């Protein structure tokens, strides 16, 4: 399955519109699909992802929940083991900290603990990281990707483009595994080309966004755009940077990154997450394991700063991975 089949007709829309299309198409296709979450229905979704679906599919398919994250994730698990395909929204993924027991101990493990007798075909989705709007502060703008990616039994994916957002969400809903679908908050309102009609993007394939010979920039979710920006800047300095979108974090597909590093011998990970014990560390560890002999310099990381997200505009901006940091670090690695 190609990410952007060249033949496909596309339309420009925001990521939330792309996600909304995916939900609408899947709700129409399969009556076992239901949506649960806070303000997803009558209110139309705080981040617009479920806009119009309550009106179209009714309150038995698009279900408004009280502020009971642990338990409505559990409701999703219960519906899933009975053959439904619940899509459970976290208004922000930060709130999934309330539901970690259901996520780790139920959603992820029931298939295994039951000796395969039960399946849990559900999707947990919502925005993470410092966006779409600024000023989210410490408890609302975290990027907790690593917490999910560490848990066996889950599939964990995050799209970097509007097109992938649609195709991956549709694939996630059809997956018989439980899927954590992380929507990059900073991209929620950003526009891009999206394929029209039916297509799926696989949940186990990283994607090469740009070829390059001097250094491999590796991102996932919102940081892929930073990588692409940096690659354009680096061009001015005569450096050709490849950009890999990791996209599928669990299971992690290293193939495109390895192929690129085999050519460039140099790599830099870019991420919004906190660096220590963040997703980037696993990517580095896998490059260590499978690309060591290809590497001409240590793999670097530019990550979110290791602080709770501060409020003041200048500090908030500084806490995110900075374009000039990425460019400088890439040059340093390329020169090493």
């Amino acid at each position, binding site marked *: 399955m190609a990410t952007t089949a060249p033949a496909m007709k596309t339309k420009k829309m925001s990521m939330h519109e792309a996600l909304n299309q995916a939900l609408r198409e899947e709700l129409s296709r399969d009556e076992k699909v239901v949506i649960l979450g806070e303000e997803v229905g009558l209110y139309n979704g705080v981040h617009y992802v479920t806009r119009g679906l309550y009106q179209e599919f009714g309150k038995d398919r698009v279900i408004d929940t009280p502020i009971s994250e642990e338990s409505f994730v559990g409701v999703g698990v*219960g519906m899933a083991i*009975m053959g439904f395909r619940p899509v459970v929204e976290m208004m922000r993924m930060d709130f999934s900290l309330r539901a970690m027991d259901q996520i780790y101990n139920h959603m992820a493990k029931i298939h295994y603990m039951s*000796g395969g007798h039960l399946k849990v075909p559900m999707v947990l989705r919502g925005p993470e990281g410092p966006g779409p709007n600024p000023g989210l502060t410490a408890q609302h703008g975290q990027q907790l990707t690593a917490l999910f990616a560490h848990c066996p039994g889950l599939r964990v994916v995050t799209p970097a483009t509007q097109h992938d957002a649609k195709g991956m969400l549709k694939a996630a809903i059809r997956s018989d*595994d439980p899927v954590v679908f992380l929507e990059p908050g900073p991209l929620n309102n950003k526009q891009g080309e999206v394929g029209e009609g039916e297509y799926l993007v696989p949940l186990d394939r990283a994607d090469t966004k740009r070829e390059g010979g001097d250094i491999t920039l590796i991102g996932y979710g919102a940081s892929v755009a930073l990588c692409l920006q940096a690659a354009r800047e680096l061009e001015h300095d005569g450096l050709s940077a490849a950009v890999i979108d990791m996209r599928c974090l669990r299971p992690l597909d290293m193939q495109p990154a390895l192929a690129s590093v085999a050519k460039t011998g140099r790599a830099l990970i870019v991420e919004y997450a906190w660096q220590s014990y963040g997703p980037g560390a696993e990517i580095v560890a896998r490059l260590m394991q499978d690309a060591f002999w290809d590497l001409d310099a240590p793999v670097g990381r530019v990550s979110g700063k290791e602080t709770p997200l501060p409020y003041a505009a200048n500090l908030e901006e500084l806490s995110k991975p900075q374009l000039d940091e990425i460019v400088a670090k890439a040059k340093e690695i390329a020169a090493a």
Partner: protein
Amino acid sequence: MSTTSESIPTPAAARPGRSSAQWKRMLRMMITIREFEHLGEQEFRNGLIRGYYHSYAGQEAVGVGMLEALDPSHDYIVDHYRDHGHCLAMGIDAEQVFAELFGRRTGVSKGKGGSMHMYSPDKHFLGGDGIVGGGISVAAGVGMALKRMPGKGLCVCFFGDGALDTGTFHESLNLASLWDLPVVFVCINNQYSMGTSLQRHSSLSQLVDRASGYGMPTEQIDGQDVGAVYSASERIFAAVRERQRPCFIEALTYRYQGHGIHDKPLNYRTTEEEEPWRRRDPIRLLSEKLIEERQMTPAQIEKMRQEVTAELEAKAERARQAPAPEARELFDDVMI
């Protein structure tokens, strides 16, 4: 929205009287559970069972009386970790339960789950659960599913008095009431949350009162008297089915053994406290009734016990002989 003052009506559908065969079946099941736990604890001491062992001895009337009233083709149960007795009462073969406890691939969860994680969707048994209160929201989800399926099925959810201290209990009851779910929440009040007596963990001594804030009918039942449990369950299940509304039951009972196999209950309670409960032993109560009513003689009951034991020993032996999972099965069923 409903008020807290509802009581559970007797719907027309409640079946009257019970046959002698039914009484004998219930007696036999209670004896089966008692002897099963006895054998199981022995095997734990022999080293064949590892980890946890939570005995249901003393509480048999709750599960047996209640599950006898189920509609086996449409109803489901979601259980907590003290689940061997409920497995048997749901018709799961004791050999499969032993095999699970012995870590055999013929076990009900293929040896992957162990004592607390039995699953048999065929028998509508949707799991034990090791997390106190962990199944309560899952049961609400099963109720959501049943409400959308034909057959007016309901979900019975078992948990202990300790589970009332978990937030998810309260969240789930609110959801179930708000959404009119056919779920019967059954608190097996055995007076202790591990070594902590009701007085030391609950702000109110009547647990029905702690479930009074959700606009659903509540009822306290005598969990020692299997006939009383059965009658109440028949009536309550019919009402839940008819009204498509949840209810809460507090079954008063007592566990004979420690919380788990290593626990010595006399460290925190007295034989004087235990004594009146043992006088009202559920097997004894029913035996006395059947003898008094001349439905069975003491000799017949003793013969039943011996038959049951012999049968269980044979099943345990077959389970012992069954193979352990193969090494390659370690990675089976992590994902689909």
